[in-house]
């Protein structure tokens, strides 16, 4: 009876696997499991140390309920102002430098030699992380916000130029051509044919980068490049979790405010 029913109903439907080739699927799964085992074997976890730490973890979480803004308010305030100043200055300079580089890195605007140079600059800037650049710049320029400012400007160039260049490359050719046909010079062509098309994206990206720069400026202090990071590091070192919690809360609030603001601005320009 049951076989008869199965013959009528046919085979039950089965979900298609994500990877179609059977051998590849098994090789991937087996490789993954082998890697996981190897990774877990080599990581040393001191569970008793972790268990001891849980008490401190609890204290830290509790510190968020009673953050201490007042006892180190001078240090927090100075660090925050320095972080914000670094963020603003480096965003302005970074954006100003990355616009010509973005034009150079767009194949439909720039000739091949300039294109290669600008793409090279972008690749170098993107491959080096902020913190490593900051270490080198602190070694060269000494401690202080200047090293942080230069680091963030340098990082902004790679990020903004790449995304802006991609936007310029995907712009509408027709409008640019119309401006050219009216006899515009190169600058006029950029100003009236290209710029209006990429402006919304440029503003959006700039706001986004401002947001990232602020977040990054919070860690540059760890290597001596100015900003709130130094204060935060000291707070952790002295186990002053309530002060650390206060700083982290301020960072989170500023980031949320910036994100909200950039959302508003982006919605307006687009």
């Amino acid at each position, binding site marked *: 009876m049951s076989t008869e029913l199965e013959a009528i109903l046919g085979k039950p439907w089965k979900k298609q696997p994500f990877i179609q080739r059977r051998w590849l699927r098994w090789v991937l799964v087996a490789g993954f499991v082998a890697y996981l085992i190897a990774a877990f074997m080599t990581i040393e976890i*001191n569970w008793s140390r972790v268990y001891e*730490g849980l008490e401190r973890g609890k204290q830290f979480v509790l510190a968020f309920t009673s953050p201490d803004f007042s006892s180190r308010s001078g240090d927090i305030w100075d660090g925050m102002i320095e972080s914000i100043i670094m963020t603003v200055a480096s965003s302005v300079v970074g954006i100003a430098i990355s616009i010509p580089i973005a034009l150079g890195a767009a194949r439909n605007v720039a000739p091949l030699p300039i294109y290669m140079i600008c793409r090279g600059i972008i690749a170098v800037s993107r491959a080096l992380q902020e913190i490593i650049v900051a*270490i080198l710049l602190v070694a060269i320029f000494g401690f202080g*916000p200047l090293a942080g400012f230069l680091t963030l400007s340098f990082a902004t160039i790679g990020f903004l130029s790449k995304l802006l260049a991609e936007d310029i490359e995907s712009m509408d050719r027709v409008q640019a051509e119309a401006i050219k046909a009216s006899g515009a010079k190169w600058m006029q062509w950029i100003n009236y044919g290209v710029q209006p098309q990429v402006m919304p994206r440029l503003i959006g990206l700039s706001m986004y980068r401002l947001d990232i720069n602020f977040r990054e400026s*919070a860690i540059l202090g*760890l290597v001596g490049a100015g900003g709130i990071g130094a204060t935060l590091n000291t707070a952790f070192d002295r186990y002053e979790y309530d002060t650390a919690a206060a700083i982290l809360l301020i960072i989170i609030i500023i980031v949320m405010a910036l994100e909200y603001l950039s959302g508003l601005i982006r919605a307006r320009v687009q």
Partner: protein
Amino acid sequence: MPVQDYNDQKLWQRRTGRESLFHWVLWLTGVAIFAYCWQQISDATTWFFVWDAPRIANDIWTRATPPKWEYFTQLGKPIWDTLNIATLGTIIALVLAVPVAFAAARNTTPSRFLVRPIALLIIVATRSINSLIWALLLIAIIGPGVFAGVVAIAIRSIGFCAKLLYEAIEEIDETQVEAITATGASRWQIMAYGIVPQILPAFAGIAVFRWDINIRESTVLGLVGAGGIGLQLSSSLNVLAWPQVSLILLVILLAVVISEWVSAKVRGAII
């Protein structure tokens, strides 16, 4: 588009008088703010060091070249640790990010007023704090080592993955979900057959993308003591062993380039 008569000729201008005044004021404010910021930075800088910088840079360069190639034999374990921090951190983050993303997406959240704000708060809080700060915190709590790095990377990645994932969930095609619902599927069946297949490509893309970023971040986590190649970097920096520093920087650069290449390849294959 304002057009003005000027000696019986019509002249086109880009902006009206008020618009250009507005722009002018905007620019003036911007320049003033920048000038103030620059002045503050300049006050906090010892300019003697800056003028001396080319000599110092040259000095460091001569010390750092050529890299100490034979030091590479000692870097095997740190590189493996770095890879583990990034990969395990990404896996843990993805496991934790999926429920957060489903709770945060408008169309799948169990409760719009209770659960969704909590999920969004988790996303914002984990995303806005850098992994180095998480590492700093975790080292104070659970002690230095690779494990602290894994957890730091995992926590930091939750917000990022969950944000991208919940945006993908919100953009799904509702008709497919409706079709599954119409067959009488339960809530979990709707998820498994209506929603998951639609977001699976996005999920795989996010996973590889975040893995790439995590490789980058895990190379420097050691600077605060959380294991990996950064540990070697910071100890070399502390003893001013510049030939070792330059070799480590080369290795990090190579790792970043390779991980970016892998991630671009995999994402290209998925999409």
